[in-house]
């Protein structure tokens, strides 16, 4: 029986049906289904999502998904990436699964056009800036008059009072770090943003006990701007306080999902 599902890796511009070989998930044959100037990069599969509790298997799938899109980009140019496990299916014997994909390409044509324009010639980069909490605490302890005074007073107090002072001290340090983090964030964000075409602020993550992530952004960057972004990040990285994680180029996963605002009057 013919497979009812079509696993979709992404969408590229182009009107040719191309076979890309057995490079898909679990060795599936990847090919393109063209319609109306765009083509979907797909493989044929049963109408069931890929699921596994085994971490290695899922990692392998995810890497393959990315690998297919990398190949597609080389062969077909700009590619709109889809998330893992997006499968279209035919629910009706009279309509072939390839036709279902064509209908989708037809229906979303204008959206693809708008997304393509936004991402053409650009790649996504991840920038994360983090700091060592202990280094910052040392710095502010040496600088803040309030903290110096509290420490001084604490040393002359009884153990019970000293405990109270310790609490107060911790609270003061925390508030100071928060205040600094806020201004650091604004500073870093502004410095990074000027080298991007678009930027999305992601949630920060816990790193380890002492290392705190200050900023986590996905950046859409045209090829010509990558060097200047790298230089800016060098400057941030070469300070005592911060270290920078800079990864990419990725396909613009973070810039294809949000709706494109139509030009006024359309």
């Amino acid at each position, binding site marked *: 029986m013919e497979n009812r599902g079509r696993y979709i890796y992404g969408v590229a511009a182009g009107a040719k049906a191309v076979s890309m070989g057995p490079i898909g998930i679990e060795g599936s044959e990847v090919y393109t289904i063209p319609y109306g100037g765009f083509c979907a990069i797909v493989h044929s599969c049963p109408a069931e999502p*890929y699921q596994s509790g085994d971490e290695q298997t899922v990692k392998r799938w995810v890497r393959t998904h990315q690998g297919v899109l990398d190949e597609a980009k080389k062969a077909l140019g700009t590619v709109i990436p889809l998330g*893992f*496990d997006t499968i279209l299916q035919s629910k009706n014997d009279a309509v072939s699964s390839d036709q279902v994909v064509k209908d989708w390409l037809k229906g979303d044509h204008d959206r693809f056009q708008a997304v393509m324009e936004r991402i053409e010639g650009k790649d996504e980069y991840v920038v994360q800036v983090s700091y060592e909490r202990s280094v910052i605490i040392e710095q502010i302890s040496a600088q803040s008059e309030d903290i110096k005074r509290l420490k001084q007073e604490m040393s002359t107090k009884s153990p019970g009072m000293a405990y109270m002072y310790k609490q107060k001290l911790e609270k003061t340090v925390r508030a100071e770090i928060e205040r600094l983090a806020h201004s650091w964030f604004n500073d870093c964000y502004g410095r990074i943003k000027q080298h991007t075409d678009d930027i999305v602020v992601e949630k920060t993550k*816990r790193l380890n006990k002492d290392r705190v992530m200050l900023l986590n952004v996905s950046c859409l960057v045209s090829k010509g701007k990558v060097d200047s972004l790298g230089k800016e990040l060098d400057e941030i990285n070469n300070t005592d306080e911060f270290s920078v994680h*800079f990864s990419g180029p990725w396909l613009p996963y973070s810039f294809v*999902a949000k709706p494109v605002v139509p030009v006024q009057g359309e």
Partner: protein
Amino acid sequence: MQPNRDTHATLVDLLDRVLEKGLVINADLIIHMAGIPLLGVNLRACLAGMETMLKYGIWQDWDEAQRSIATRERQQKGVEEQMTALGLEPKRNLLSTMDSDIAAKILSKEEVKI
């Protein structure tokens, strides 16, 4: 500074993107049952280890999400059976509603570096 795409150091960035982002299809023919977001959480849970999971509540959320799906599926099944008995076509909008619930749950939670 040069961007890095070394597979080991940037695996988390890749997972963050491939499992949670990308173009979303608004077609009713898509198979996008709870498998997608859950797979992501499931994998993260696997990687983070039990202790971290419990600490940050991932396991709890995942478990709750699982259970709420089961409950809804049972409820929906009941409704469908009744409708079928009445000769009506059951509505197939169950999965997308569940997805948005789970997505909200996942989005509302702080992520764990793995």
